[in-house]
């Protein structure tokens, strides 16, 4: 590390016009990729993904990033902060949610689950776009996960309903639309979800020794 790094002014000179080195500390390979892709598209190309395991702190120390992005939910934040507190390799990086006065940004970052550490003296204008992007990407990833969970649930629900329909078709000699209509009207009358009625029917049928 060059000596200029220890002072704010020196840092600004030394880094002026240079690419920022960004480390992404993340357990989720997919989220890290989503974030990394976004940063690359935005023109940052010195990006390193570091999973928070084992000697990750030593790895980060060698890397000497200007910005560290980390999932707020990672249990390893205390480990990282300890490094920031004692490390001589990094020129006293500080935690930031951009600017202390920027409450909107802080709220958005915490909501999105982003924490960021930035080397002391890095100018706000240089960091803000990175954090903005991280927030958007973290949110997009969270939505993607929610959609995926929803799709999985929908698929599982459909399978359950199909099995219940098959039971009704067999035991009541109904065709498929009639079996579905019966499930739906029962659900509506009881104020329950169709999938709940279907599950109850499957359970009851297996208790009664019925085969599907």
């Amino acid at each position, binding site marked *: 590390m060059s000596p200029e790094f220890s002072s704010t002014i020196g840092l600004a000179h030394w880094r002026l016009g240079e690419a920022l080195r960004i480390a992404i500390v993340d357990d989720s390979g997919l989220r890290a990729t989503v974030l990394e892709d976004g940063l690359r598209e935005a023109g940052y190309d010195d990006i390193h993904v570091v999973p928070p395991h*084992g000697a990750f702190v030593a790895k980060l120390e060698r890397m000497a990033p200007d910005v560290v992005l980390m999932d*707020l*939910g*990672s*249990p*390893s*934040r*205390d*480990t*990282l*902060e*300890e490094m920031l*507190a004692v490390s001589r390799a990094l020129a006293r990086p*500080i*935690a930031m*949610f951009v600017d*202390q006065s920027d409450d909107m940004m*802080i*709220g958005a970052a*915490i909501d999105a689950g982003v*924490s960021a550490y930035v080397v002391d003296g890095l100018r706000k204008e240089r960091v803000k776009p990175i954090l903005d992007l991280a927030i958007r990407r973290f949110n997009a990833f969270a939505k993607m996960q929610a959609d995926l969970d929803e799709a999985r649930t929908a698929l599982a629900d459909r399978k359950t309903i199909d099995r219940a329909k098959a039971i009704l078709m067999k035991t009541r000699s109904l065709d498929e639309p009639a079996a579905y209509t019966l499930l739906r009207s029962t659900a509506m009358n009881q104020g329950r979800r169709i999938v709940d009625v279907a599950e109850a029917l499957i359970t009851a049928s297996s208790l009664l020794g019925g085969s599907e």
Partner: protein
Amino acid sequence: MTPISIAFLPLTDSAVLIAAREKGFAEEAGIALDLVRTTSWATARDRLVYGQVQAAHMLAPLAIAVTLGLSQHPAALAAPFKLNVNGNALAMASDFAAALDPDPVRRLADPIAAAHDFAGAIGLHRRKPVIGIVHRFSCHALMLRYWLATAGVDADRDVTLRVLPPSLMVEAMRAGEIDGFIAGEPWGSVAVAEGLGEIVAAGSRIWQRGVEKVLAFRADWIEAQAETIDRLLPALARAAIWCDDPANHAELAELLERPFYVGRPAAELMPALTGQMVLRHGEPPVTVPDFMLFQREAANFPWRSQALWIYSQLVRWNMAEADEDNERRAADVFRSDIYRRALAGSGLPMPGASMKVEGALSAPTAVGAHEGALTLGPDRFFDGRAFDPQDVTGYLKGLAAIPLD
């Protein structure tokens, strides 16, 4: 209903908050308590400092460090209520522990001898021992440093302290990344149950009434919300009474077992609640009196002298500057005045003073109290040294006289 969000970490000493929610104590007080599970102290701190939650389960020294501007964004915090007293254990990997007194009961009973044994074991170990601590600003780390220093061990030189979240300690021990750790329960007991390590020291034997977690608020918020605080703190005190009652320990362990709370089997949570600690895998449990207190002896009362003891340790280990302003601000984090106001008329014994000499009681002692009788248990430090909050400088001078060789 008044909504209040509180961040917590999955530890046995989050029990009072969990009981307040699950056993209806908060609801009875008109408070809709939302508990926000958090897996690092940094995130609990940030959620509190940036206003995402109104309060946080927090390491007492961290609340002071944030106030003094030593841990990221400075913010004035207020701790009007301690969530527990005691509850830590030092677990060392079996290969390291083999060099200590073979009888684990004797190790606990005589912390001074154990510290000297520990010092000897350092040289015998295959590397400089790596000890996991949960945070530099934790009472566990401060007590570990104090205990080791008695035997001439400098924690910054003779061992490597590695910060890890409590929930990752056992895995790190299994992987051989650390040789031991000091953390809140259940993690010491988990290491023993999994046959990885032995409990070689208990917080309650290093300082018999050691300050531990507090409920921390932002100072400006707590001033503005007096009416809510005056309902919340009595509800928490009732929850703490419930947690202390041995008749409720099994039910409490089942609550804590839920994945959203601590998420470990009740059998691993019971030792700390009952003080029946298994020190070495496969051996019968040993009674460790007062392993953890939730309410008795006015455990929740934030003695300003305890905040000052923490300040003295931060100065001792070069984490804070010794100056009058820091000393005053540290003491002011512990808001005994708010505790008094909120619990006035609750019928709970109220200490007459807000400061006391820490470590002065060798036996249960009746002390001056408003509203009922209050008996404080023995609160000695393992080396017999007392801390006079009126003379922090003198205390530090006495400690500096211990050679680190």
